[in-house]
Each structure stands twice: as C-alpha cells, then as structure tokens.
C-alpha cells in the first residue's frame, strides 16, 4: 500500500503548509507556491476554507485577521465548480468540453456553488472531472436570480444582496439542447 502511505504523507504535508499559511509562517516564495496550489486543487481549497472557519470558531470571533482569508479566497476565484445531472446517463452526459476554462469575469467575493451527481460512485467530485467540466459562471446564470430572491426572505438584510456565482458548468442536457 505504498500509494496510500504516500497519499497520507502528502495530506499531512498539505495540512501543515495550510496551517503555516494561516499563521503567517511561510515566506513569500512558499506563500506564492501554496496559493498557486490552492488555486488548482479544489480539495485543498475546501480544506483551507475549513481551516479559516475552524480558526475563527476556536477564537470565538470572526474577524481576527480578516484580510488573509479574504485575499486567499480572492485568489481562489479560479476554483472550478460543477453543476451536474442527478442521474448518470453516460451515453448522454457530454460535458461542455468545448467551453473549457474561460476567464472569470465576475468580481470576487461571491458564493461558489458545487453541484454533483447523486450517484455515489460518480467521478464527478474528482478534481479532474471538475476541471474538465468547468465553464464561466456569469451574472446571467439561470440560478443567480433565485439565490438573490431567496435571500430577500431568508437572511436578506445581513447577507451580501448580490450573490455572484463563479465558474459553474452546466450539464449538456441542460445547456446544450
């Protein structure tokens, strides 16, 4: 089980690097490397967001070092996010390959959505699949007005009134036909 041991080792190393980044213990070069990896590794980016949350929760306050998490999340605007149908129909599921990675036009600071297939054995959560199925989420995405409309009622006044979705792909069954 050499692979497993390596994976475990890598995970620990990643966790330590993230922790150091959060504590401001990395030098400029290491910080830059770490941020670049965060930008391309959805799992790592989720872990980073969780670290931020845990750190805040542990300290019992939300704004100890507000700039850092926000700046890093700004750097993560490129994180791929997917939308996917619930049922797998492999012969029909043609992700929008042509779309590819289009530069995110929207401003940062929004809410990123992740949509996946219901099939537990699905490969949709793997970063490779996410990357392959990414397209730009613009302000014209069909879901965005729903989010804003929902927030009018839910927690409307305290939340950013305009939710921005960035980089969500639309399954072929939705967008292509």
């Amino acid at each position, binding site marked *: 089980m050499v692979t497993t041991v390596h994976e475990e080792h890598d995970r620990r190393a990643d966790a330590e690097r993230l922790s150091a980044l959060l504590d401001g213990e990395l030098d400029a070069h290491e910080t830059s490397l770490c941020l670049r990896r965060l930008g391309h590794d959805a799992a790592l980016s*989720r872990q980073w*967001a*969780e670290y*931020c*949350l845990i750190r*805040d*929760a542990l300290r019992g*306050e*939300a*704004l100890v070092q*507000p700039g850092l*998490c*926000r700046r890093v*999340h700004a750097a993560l605007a490129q994180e791929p996010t997917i*939308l*996917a*149908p*619930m*049922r797998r*129909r492999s012969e029909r599921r043609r992700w929008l390959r042509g779309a590819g990675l289009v530069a995110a036009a929207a401003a940062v*600071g929004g*809410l*990123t*959505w*992740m*949509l*996946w297939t*219901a099939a537990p054995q699905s490969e949709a959560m793997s970063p490779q699949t996410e990357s392959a199925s990414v397209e730009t989420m613009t302000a*014209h*995405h*069909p*879901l*965005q*007005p*729903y*989010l*804003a*409309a*929902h927030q*009018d*009622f*839910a*927690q*409307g*006044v*305290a*939340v*950013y*009134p305009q939710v921005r979705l960035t980089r969500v792909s639309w*399954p072929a*069954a*939705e967008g292509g*036909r």
Partner: protein
Amino acid sequence: MSAPALRSVLALVLGLTCIAEGAANEALSAQEAGQWLQRVADSARRLTYEGKFVFQQGDVLQTMYVVSRASGGQKHTQLVTLDGTPRELLCREGETLIVTHEGGAPRVERRPGSRHFPDLLPANAAVLVNWYSVRWGENDRVAGLDCRWLELAPRDVYRWRHELCVEKDSLLPLKAVMVNEAGRPLQQYAFTEVTIGTGVRPAAPQRSLPAVEPPPLRASTADMLTLRQLPPGYTRIAAVKRRLPNRPQEVEHWLYSDGLTYISLFIEPATRPLEPFKGASPRGMLNLLSRRVGNWQVTVLGDAPWPAVEAIAHAVAER
C-alpha cells in the same frame, strides 16, 4: 473547623454546584422553553439598541452597524454595511429598503423580508419548541457584556442547530450561530460593541429618499402545482409572483419555513428538456434541487439541510 467537617462542607458545596450545573444543562420543559424563546424574540423587537456586529457565512465576512429604535409597538431598524460598497438597509415590518451609495444619487430598492441580526427568532417563537429541543448552556461574554447560551437542538434531520448567546439582563441576542449536523458552524453573527436602552443616539430627522419603484411582487395565482407533504413544522409563509433578472416572464416564488429555516420554491414553465440536478455551496450551507414536474421546472433552494430541501422538492406534484 475540623478536617472531616471541612470535607463535608466542601462535598456539600461541590454537590450543590453539580446539581445547579446539571439542572442548567437539562433540556427545558416545553412550557419553559417556549416562554424563554418568546422573551428572547420580544427583546430584539421591543428594545432600543445600537452597535456593530460581524457576520460570517462561509468565506464571507461582513461588518455592519445597526441601530434599532422601538416605539409604540413598532420598530425601525437601520443597518449599514461597513465593508465594501456603502449600503444602508432600512427595515420595517415585512419589508426592507436598500439604499446603495455608489457614484451619484443613491439607488433605492424595495425588498420583501426584514429579518436581520439580532432579530432572528420568529414573532411566535414559542412554537419552535415543537421542532427544537431547548436548553440553557454556558455563561459567556460577548462585546464586553455577560451573556448565556440558549441552545436549540433540532428534533429531526430537517433543520440545523441554532445557538444564541443572550445578554443576561435584557435577553438581547449578542451572538448567534447556526451549526450543521457535523457540529460545524455554518453562519455566525456577533456584536463587537453594543449599547442597549439608554445611550443610543437619537434618531436623525427623516431624509427624503428618491422615489422607490413599486415592489416587483404580486400575489401568487398559481394553482397548477401542489405539495403533497411538507417536512414537520414547515409551512408556506409567502407565495408571490415576481419578475427576476434573466427571466422572460414572472416566476412563482413560494417560501416555506419552520420559523428559523427558510426554503424557497421557484416555479417556471419548463422550456427545454431537463434532467434533475442538485447542488450545494462548498460547506453545504445552501442546498438546491431542480426537477421537472409536468410542464414546470421546479427549483428548491434553501439554507437548510439537504433532507429538508429534498423532501420539499419531491413533494411537488401536479394537481
């Protein structure tokens, strides 16, 4: 005092302390819980207060100023964003005016809904005891004031846990946390400074605001779909037709709530083949399911656990 006597006294004191702690952490009876919840809900509506709070949801952090003045059974609340674009929210019963100061003249929008921190509990908060088990937690200190945690634990999978640290004298919530089933905080509000009652600055004279467009809402007329069964405690609290950006025609927006959890149901004509899809924000704070029912596309979206969103989405049927 002899050593054995001293030990007896110590044992007694320790025993009493444990009883007090134990009693404090027992779930409250439905009647007690209902009374406390109602008092906390009323405090946020009937008190005059002013302060600054931070709001955290996932990656978003926001600082806001709030002042709420109560008089004659009414309350007027003003919230101002202290980060990013200056935005002012004027909350009245059931609606909010949002004034955005960017560039030239301020832009004013009217929005439905007026829920805001610290006024998060519903008006009839006592009924929450049917869906949440309530208990007092630890003492704490927030924004320099002593408070005590009031914990609302869900009785089923259709809602999340809520915790409020309420100020000891006034019962005004100073901190509010929504926690998911794994115990992870999804959303938090906390005052960093607050003045309650006397000391709040007097209201500024009324300003004249630019004309506000009429609310983009009409009463729902939809009777084409129905919900067969709702998760326990959820009722429909709003049903409107509204015009949304990127939509050629009005969509139906129905809102379901148990008093603390809010789930929206959007209905629009299905204009193309649709495979059902689901989604969530990265930490699961928002869940979504979209499916086709007859000739309609139905999208359910809420700051609610997946089972609640799923149950509502699957309950939709044609009449």
